[in-house]
């Protein structure tokens, strides 16, 4: 496969624009580029950055959303990470947490490992999968102007929301958040007024 840029939003601009609209959100990121994109937009103690545990971003977001029903919880992940934990969409739908939004930055490729085509380039429609799992409120974002409506849905906390953000395959500058999961967990909990344990 070639790595020429495909049509799609600039992922860094899209993530920064969305997070600018959601200063209060609790954010969980999926490993690889989404973790870097969220960090590049400006770090906050209410971000939890996954550097591994592939497939775990949505389940972590689910447990967090159930624990914090009065806060908007945002999972920001990529198509590859989402595909590995695709069944979690059914588990999310079964619980239907109104405060959980899943944002998938879909470039159709495994960006961290050499830009191999992922299933979303080869026929899988993540929005159709999410709807089939029972997540009815879905967005497909192809223009930055649509992010306002998505942010409004996140802040409403009235239904589980799934958003596929179509992004390009351009290379991005490295932006690496701290890899210390313990420190990240403790600062996240401290921001919610919680002790370490």
């Amino acid at each position, binding site marked *: 496969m070639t790595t020429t840029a495909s049509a799609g939003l600039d992922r860094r601009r899209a993530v920064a624009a969305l997070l600018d609209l959601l200063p209060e959100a609790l954010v969980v990121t999926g490993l690889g580029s989404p973790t870097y994109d969220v960090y590049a937009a400006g770090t906050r103690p209410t971000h939890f950055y996954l550097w591994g545990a592939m497939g775990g971003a949505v389940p*972590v977001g689910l*447990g967090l959303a159930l624990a914090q029903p009065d806060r908007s919880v945002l999972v920001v992940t990529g198509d590859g990470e989402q595909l590995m934990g695709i069944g979690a969409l059914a*588990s999310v739908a079964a619980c239907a947490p109104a405060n959980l939004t899943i944002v998938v930055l879909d470039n159709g490729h495994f960006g961290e490992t050499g830009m191999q085509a992922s299933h979303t380039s080869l026929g899988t429609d993540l929005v159709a999968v999410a709807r089939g799992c029972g997540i009815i409120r879905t967005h497909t974002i192809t223009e930055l102007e649509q992010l306002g409506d998505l942010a409004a849905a996140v802040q409403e906390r009235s239904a589980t929301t799934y958003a596929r953000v179509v992004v390009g395959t351009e290379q991005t500058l490295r932006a690496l958040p701290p890899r210390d999961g313990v420190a990240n*967990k403790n600062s996240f909990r401290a921001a919610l007024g919680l002790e370490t344990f």
Partner: protein
Amino acid sequence: MSNPAVAPAWQESVFRVLKEAGVRQVAYVPDAGHAHAISMAQDDPDIRDVVLTTEEEGVGVVAGAWLGGERAVLLMQSSGVGNCVNMFSLLDSGRFPFLTIVTMRGEYAEFNPWQGPMGRATQGALELMGIIVMRVEEPNDVEETINAAADAVFLAGERVAVLLGQKLIGRKKWEQD
């Protein structure tokens, strides 16, 4: 089918201990040995039951619950431990408190040979991934062991799996009545 009204006493003690330990989320892939606890979780207004498509989701759910200030537990059978292995990295990398209760298959009066390989590897897989294993073989020890595990997890921040032996759970009935 299991009927919560006639659940063995040890099954009742599983749920009672979890409730007393302040568990607010019960994530699970069903098992007959966990049927009572799942049913009680579903009926308890203070506890959220989270049905999973695969056990590794439960590792994430438990960690996410902790990030948000809630205590959670993962209920599964031994085959599910194998599904979790890489996801256990999350627990060690973030030093998340983690409690799982595992019903064993493949070790006593097992009818199904397909349960054997993972049943024999369950304790080793957990220990290789840094999780403390506590085994229970006697019904009378269930309550105290889960209580001790919950203290280690929620008061000391440890990662603990309680394995409930297949002899304790009882023979699975394969012939229809």
